[in-house]
């Protein structure tokens, strides 16, 4: 029976082109109407060491999580391929490099290590490449040719992708690559189709393959970003690098500052001057920004901070994923320091969420932290091109009264004060991180501090309508309420679907807005459920503890730390045993 989804992993050493192989497969698949998710794993942080892995999940349906196991392994390096065997599905197909004429010791061969139900195919990858191009390069294209045949896919879309990639390198390079592909495709008549992919629905609207960093680049540009200030850090650097090139085209500026403190300082200054500004970082950088984010809370200066999470604490696991920066995002300021915390659950969502961040930051004059992670930031997926077109602009609450009556921190019902920016004649004020009165002058007395604190908190009620509400799936009267957030939501959603099939009564809640809370909605949901289970990728149970503390409820916590995105199977496993039946 043809499968609705297949995962193909390519592994190799530096220069073997694993990542390019994944990209090639993904792009062809998208042309055929499939959805794809490309997850790359890099070795140590410095170039040239260890194993690079590119994993492409190809599916008839939308995919936002990694699969439980790999169905096809393309081993561009046999030693690495043997290491990977333990991660494969029981009945996986393995494409490895065979050298015609040279016999490898049986006990060192790929088939020797393959499981009983696996099908190893030796294909003369390097040998063919050598023959076609005179060099070793291109063996990955041979492998992809063989793969296409194996899966019963037409040559066409692959040829087209090769054209897009190589035409600019000259006719010769292109024709060589086509030849490499065709050799692979023709290598051996595959008689029994061991693995077959269901046909995708005909491609509808235009789709593009992008990473979260790419999506956010476009979101920011289309949200009228004027100043980006940042400092490089994995996995956020690419966002700055993209913007460095793109933003000036649209009248914006990118500066790399001396550190993250200066970055968030410059973002503060730019917003103070009335322009949309942002930075992007990861845990260590977010730590350094704590003081100035908190200044933003006190001075009611909008800030937009993208924090792409990686494994922690400290330098931690710079190239791995975890959703463990929620605590510092929520509570990383001294004093009573409320700020907006948003977390898209996948690449496509990161576009709209970042745009919301700008609008809410400006309208409510507050720092907004957008949590993504390495999985969202650096994986690639196919999305409809149209979702990347939405544009946003100023949401500033203008002042309409007489200049002399202007008070920068006027206490209002919503907690939001009209905002006049520097350069406006007839008005002057100083914004201060000291507690202040309505004019901005320092004021330390108790009633003033209480009134101003309340004002700063009140805004967070007013803004709820402008922020994504929790999204529920499944029966409203589900016995179990499963709540999740961040990139692991994809696996949770897929896992819960399986549990539905198994007959469990589950309501699923996706939480994108973490602070402020859509309190009425959530309180209702908690009341209806008999049991609450919060699933997330960290050890503390950060969202779980927050929700329990906020609502005074009890809930089961499912922790999935480790550094790799969880798979749907892991989720069902962990959740199942806690479900009420």
């Amino acid at each position: 029976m043809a499968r609705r989804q297949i995962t193909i992993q390519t592994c190799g050493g530096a220069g073997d082109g694993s990542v390019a192989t994944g990209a090639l497969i993904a792009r062809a698949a998208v042309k055929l109407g499939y959805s794809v998710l490309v997850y790359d794993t890099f070795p140590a942080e410095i170039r040239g060491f260890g194993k690079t892995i590119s994993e492409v999940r190809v599916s008839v349906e939308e995919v936002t999580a990694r699969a439980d196991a790999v169905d096809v392994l393309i081993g561009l390096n046999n030693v690495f391929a043997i290491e990977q065997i333990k991660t494969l599905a029981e009945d996986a197909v393995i494409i490895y490099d065979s050298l015609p004429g040279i016999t490898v010791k049986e006990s060192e061969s790929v088939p020797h290590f393959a499981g009983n139900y696996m099908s190893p195919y030796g294909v003369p990858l390097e040998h063919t490449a050598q023959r076609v191009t005179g060099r070793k390069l291109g063996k990955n294209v041979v492998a992809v040719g063989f793969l296409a045949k194996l899966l019963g896919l037409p040559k066409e879309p692959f040829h087209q992708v090769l054209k897009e990639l190589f035409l600019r390198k000259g006719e010769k390079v292109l024709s060589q690559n086509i030849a490499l592909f065709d050799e692979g495709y023709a290598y051996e008549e595959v008689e029994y189709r061991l693995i077959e992919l269901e046909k995708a629905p005909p491609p509808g609207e235009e789709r593009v393959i992008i990473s979260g960093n790419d999506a956010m680049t476009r979101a920011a540009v289309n949200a009228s970003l004027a100043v980006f200030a940042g400092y490089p850090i994995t996995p956020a650097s690419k966002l700055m690098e993209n913007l460095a090139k793109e933003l000036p085209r649209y009248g914006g500026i990118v500066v790399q500052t001396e550190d993250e403190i200066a970055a968030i300082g410059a973002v503060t200054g730019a917003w103070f001057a009335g322009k949309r500004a942002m930075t992007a970082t990861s845990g260590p950088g977010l730590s350094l920004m704590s003081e100035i984010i908190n200044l933003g809370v006190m001075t009611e200066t909008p800030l937009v901070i993208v924090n792409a999470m990686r494994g922690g604490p400290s330098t931690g696991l710079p190239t791995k994923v975890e959703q463990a920066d929620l605590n510092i995002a929520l509570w990383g300021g001294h004093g009573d320091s409320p700020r907006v915390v948003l977390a898209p659950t996948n690449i496509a969502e990161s576009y709209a969420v970042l745009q919301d961040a700008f609008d809410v930051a400006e309208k409510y004059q507050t720092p907004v932290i957008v949590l993504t992670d390495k999985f969202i930031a650096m994986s690639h997926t196919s999305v409809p091109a149209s979702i990347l077109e939405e544009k946003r602009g100023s949401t500033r609450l203008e002042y309409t009264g007489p200049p002399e009556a202007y008070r920068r921190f006027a206490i209002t019902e919503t907690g939001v004060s009209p905002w006049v920016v520097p350069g406006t004649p007839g008005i002057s004020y100083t914004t201060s991180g000291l507690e202040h009165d309505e004019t901005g002058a320092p004021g330390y007395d108790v009633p003033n501090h209480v009134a101003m604190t309340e004002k700063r908190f009140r805004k967070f009620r007013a803004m709820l309508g402008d922020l994504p509400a929790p999204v529920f799936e499944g029966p409203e009267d589900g016995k179990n309420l499963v709540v999740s957030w961040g990139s692991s939501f994809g696996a949770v959603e897929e896992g819960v679907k399986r549990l539905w099939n198994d007959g469990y009564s589950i309501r699923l809640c996706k939480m994108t807005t973490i602070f402020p809370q859509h309190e009425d909605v959530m309180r209702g949901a908690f009341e209806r459920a008999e049991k609450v289970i919060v699933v997330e990728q960290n050890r503390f149970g950060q969202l779980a503890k927050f929700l329990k503390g906020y609502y005074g409820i009890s809930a089961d916590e499912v922790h999935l730390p480790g550094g790799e995105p969880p798979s749907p199977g892991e989720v069902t496993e962990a959740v199942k045993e806690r479900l009420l039946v």
Partner: protein
Amino acid sequence: MSEMKRKEEILVNISQVRKKKIVEKHGRLRPIFCGGCGHFAGLHAVYHMMSELGIENHQLVIVSGIGCSGRFPMFVNCYGFHGVHGRALPVALGVKLANPSLTVLVVGGDGDGLGIGGGHLPHAARSNVDITYILLDNSIYGLTKGQVAPTTPSGDVTSTTPYGNPSRPLDPVKLSLVHGATFVARGFSGRPDELNAIVVEAVKHRGFSLVQVLSPCVTFNRNETYEKYYEMTEPLPGERDLTDWDQAMKFASAGEKIYTGIFYQKPGVKTLDEFCVGVIRKVGEFDDGRITGSLSGKVENGEGKVVE
């Protein structure tokens, strides 16, 4: 002349300046500096500069950190940002990049600028962003009541160095010369006229300008006094080539004397704000190089193209 007399003289001087109808430059709040504090002279130099250069109140932004000196913007009738300790320069950078038409000043203390904020000065200077940094140097932490500062001389006893300061002081003039600042000067609160003139030139300069102000703390620093500076300071000789970096460094490192005046000025170096506007003009869809962020932006992306 006794210190008291000097102080009186300064106050008289200041009051004359005040007469120059610069009252409309005063902020809503009255300065909370101790009587005789050197920071007053810095404040008046800014009032003077505003009226001299005809900078309108709403066109000026003053960014500061924390310290007695940090309260500065509240005493000027302009837009002010009184942020956290040591981070005024990055905030000012953001202001200037977002809106290059504003005149941007940074005012701060020696602790704020060379201690906690000391990592930012080199980069502001070498970027040549068009802002003026007035560093009110009293060689002490005033607001926190008398701890050692980065400019405190070796051996000085302070509340945190009861057995003497073990470190050698930093000199912001030499530092910013090495950082690549295009305008470097030193004034002294005890000579307000000279200081006024320097601040005017600093603000007129296109590019990063640093003005160190020897600004005695009469409450917590019994060593770096008006008296001492009247003795040790001397105006730089006139008629110099201000673009001669080596000479500037020589005057700056002349051990015996503390020179005041403009050490170095190199006009015509592209500022960071000019650079950014230039890039926009070159590659942007608008050819006027406005810094706006654009609503009409449309990001290129081929069909099915892997962008990263």
